[in-house]
């Protein structure tokens, strides 16, 4: 081989090695995400009413989503015993969203999972003893316990938030859903523009039967709660104190119980965030607002609702607190039993702590002195592992 050829091929080798080395050691692409996260309420929750208390909790023994099943429990008013009343017919790995009605009636939605893309609905009128299917919502329900609301004043209408950021309404028996609003149409209203609406987060009704929608506002100091007045969406009239003027506000839940609607809001971001409850009277425009519960940077783990506007919250820091519309101050609860996922409020506002370990639910009741939890009931749920695989 000539010297010139040798030098040439050597250079080629070096160039090839550099090229290959550069290809082989290229750093992995790192996606950047600059958008802020919309706070979402946990699906573990409970709803208390005059006829009893409902609780939905996630149970299962595996990290695989297919082996996690949502369970529904009901405790009739005047008793201390919980019963497993999970509705049948559909795999509920995607989540159960409950809307409680008058008396022991309720409608449950199965959030779709895997290859299911619409939302089956089912109702009970006897505390979950018997269930009958309703016409499905032909869209996936949004992933929040605030995605379904039942009007219990008379019309019996259902209001549902979908993952496509639309609000659909139907009479459960007729089963014909119509789009009441969407993020786009609501955001284009004067109230929506004032809020700078960025996401729909909750659906509800005023005790008078007026549909409510709520969301995340991009404008600080504005609470995005909207009421449908004869087909026109307007601000629901919640005026915030000046102390919240510079805060971002997200409405997490809208729950109508006992002739009032409670709105759970998160104010601020990060370490400055706090929880607030706003209660409305039968009509919009008459709101009272609670003091803030400091989250100290923790996330809201679960929120529960009971009679007399009672709201209980568990935060990521392991603390729990309860507030009523009459007391107007948060009452700290003793340290929760291990694995508590939600609190359930009784008629007198006394909470039960529901703790989940695999397929076992343990009910802890707060002692009368309010200082300790005592184990009251253990329910072993016959979960069919592998049935959704």
């Amino acid at each position, binding site marked *: 081989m000539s010297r010139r050829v040798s030098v040439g091929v050597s250079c080629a080798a070096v160039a*090839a090695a*550099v090229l290959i080395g550069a290809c082989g050691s290229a750093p992995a692409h790192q996606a950047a995400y600059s958008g802020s996260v919309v706070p979402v309420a946990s699906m573990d929750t409970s709803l208390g009413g005059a006829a009893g208390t409902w609780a939905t909790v996630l149970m299962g023994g595996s990290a695989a989503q297919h082996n996690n*099943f949502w369970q529904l429990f009901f405790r009739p008013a005047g008793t201390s015993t919980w019963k497993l009343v999970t509705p049948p017919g559909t795999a509920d790995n995607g989540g159960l969203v409950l809307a409680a009605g008058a008396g022991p009636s309720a409608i449950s939605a199965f959030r779709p999972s895997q290859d299911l893309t*619409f939302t089956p609905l089912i109702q009970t009128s006897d505390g979950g003893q018997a269930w009958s299917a309703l*016409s*499905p919502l032909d869209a996936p329900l949004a992933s929040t316990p605030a995605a379904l609301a039942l009007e219990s004043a008379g019309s019996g209408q259902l209001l549902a938030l979908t993952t496509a950021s639309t609000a659909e309404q139907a009479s459960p028996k007729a089963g014909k859903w119509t789009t009441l609003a969407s993020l786009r149409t609501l955001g284009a209203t004067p109230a929506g523009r004032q809020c700078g609406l960025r996401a729909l987060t909750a659906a509800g009704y005023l005790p008078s039967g007026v549909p409510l929608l709520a969301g995340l506002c991009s404008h600080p100091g504005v609470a995005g709660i909207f009421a449908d007045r004869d087909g026109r969406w307007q601000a629901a009239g919640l005026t915030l104190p000046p102390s919240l003027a510079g805060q971002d506000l997200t409405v997490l839940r809208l729950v109508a119980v006992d002739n009032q609607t409670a709105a759970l809001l998160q104010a601020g971001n990060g370490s400055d965030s706090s929880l607030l409850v706003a209660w409305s009277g039968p009509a919009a425009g008459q709101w009272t607002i609670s003091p803030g519960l400091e989250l100290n940077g923790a996330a809201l783990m679960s929120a529960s609702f009971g009679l007399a506007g009672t709201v209980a919250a568990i935060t990521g820091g392991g603390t729990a607190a309860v507030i009523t519309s009459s007391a107007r101050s948060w009452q700290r609860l003793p340290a929760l039993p291990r694995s508590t996922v939600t609190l359930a409020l009784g008629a007198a506002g006394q909470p039960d702590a529901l703790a989940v370990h695999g397929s076992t639910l343990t009910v802890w009741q707060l002692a009368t002195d309010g200082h300790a939890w005592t184990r009251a009931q253990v329910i072993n749920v016959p979960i069919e592992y592998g049935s*959704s695989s």
Partner: protein
Amino acid sequence: MPGMNSGLNVNDPTVVAAFRSALLHQGLIALLIFVVLGLAWLGLRGFLTSAARSVGTAPVAMSAEPSWRAVLRIGFGILWVFDGILQAQPKMAVGLPSQVIEPIAATSPAWVQHAVNWAGTAWSYHPLQAGAAAVWIQLGIGVWLLASVRGPLSRLAGVVSVGWGLVVWVFGESFGGIFAPGLTWLFGAPGAVLVYAIAGALIALPESAWRSRLPSRLLLPGVGVFLVGMALLQAWPGRGFWQGTAHGKPATLASMTASMAPTPQPHLLSSWITAFTGFDEAHGFAVNLFVVVALAVIGVTFLSGRPRLVRLALIAFVVLSLADWVLIEDFGFFGGLGTDPNSMIPFILFGAAGYLALVSAPEAQPDGAVATVSERAASWQSRVRATLAPGSLATASLGSVAAIGAIGTIILGAVPMAAAQASPVADTILAQAVDGSNAPLDFAASPFQLTDQNGHQVSLASLRGKVVLLTFLDPVCTSDCPLIAQEFKQAGQLLKTDARRVELVAIVANPVDYQLGYTQAFDRQEGLAGVRNWLYLTGSLPELQRVWRDYGIAADIEPAGAMIGHTEVAFAIDQRGRVRYEMGFDPGPGTTATESSFAAELSDTAQQLLASS
């Protein structure tokens, strides 16, 4: 990677048995080809030799095959045969996409995965034909190379070796992983089969090149350049080769060998690899320095072209390659589903051939030309004359006959695969592997009258005159039923014009969610609302329960949030209303391959019934 993996167990007994059977049958045909060719050759030889004697044709003088070419031809011929035998492993039919192609492609860029996915999907759709084709093509190329010493047939063997080698390199080895991070000579870069292809190209050189200096200029310097490049790559910082451990875990080389040690293999080999892993963890820098220096020195020595130095470097290269083959590559075919002995043996063959080309290179001609045009023309003319002469057939060697047999073997494997690829649907063997073969029956189908998704009453009697493919679906099922619905939809598409004479019917199998709104929502979800011969029937619960009982369908409410447990079955009902087949219809892994296979099975069954009417 979507579609690549059929999802079946690699040891699936149905596929393994069918693969063995296919290989046995094709093997017998291949044997027959060789026997017939051999007998014909013997007969012609006896007849034509005497005829040639009477004509008095003189034998054509030919130059001997150079030693470097013999090393490449025989060496890579044996490797192809060995690879063909490895392809005959029972697990290969199902396992190659999931256990060979997919893991290799996993670290490559998306465009490589996209290209590889195409081939993996093609294989997983037709595992028997693809598996058998790989066996016979590789055995055929190997035998062809071994048998055909010289002449156009021998050169053609080299060309075919290049073609198939590139196919395997691109689709089977994801371009040898050259676009993936962690590329190194130690792990087999740039892919063993690329070396096969280059060897094929050298074998395909015309005979005039044998007498030139081209081989000596190409072979050893080529290996030298490659090794210098690999030394630089090995020395490149930040690739994890200079450390034995990183963050308390084995670094790049040690983690690779550590993963090889536990795979099934003789204990002695495993212990060697474990010992090397420990050594590299402790002395990672020294190991890499040694490799870098060794590759660089050997490469530069190969480039020097001095035979005495090259001989020493070749010995060092053989030792280094063998050490790598045993301690790092684990012989290439241990540990998982091996398809070849990896790259070190091909490299050794290349090095040896390069050395032989160097030491046997002719002196440079004064004008630098290999041969004059007139010489080339003369040799071409003499070759044509020799080929056309009647006596040439009589003097055809046994090797040439074997080469023709090998070509027949390649065709034997390639033609069924090509025919299978012409079909867009997967082989029904996949569906049979999941749920067994169809059970032939012949009894009157139980009548029913239910409501379709449009609210119209439909009875089985009203479908008389059509083939009915009947199944039972839960409209809120989250896993299997949507797959089954898609299989029915695909079957309808496969039937084409015959679809007019076939009705695809599902009956609700859910005692809770059976209302019309659910069948309609399911149809929209599955894109079935516009399918003309699709019926999704429901009724009152007592009506449904009666149909379930008549057809032996369980539809049980399961507790605690589980979906309805129901029988997954399909019935084929002929035009006279008689049940002719019952098909297990659990969709199994639900891959695109199995989905397509079930659709093909449905379509085939319907067409069979249509044809028998």
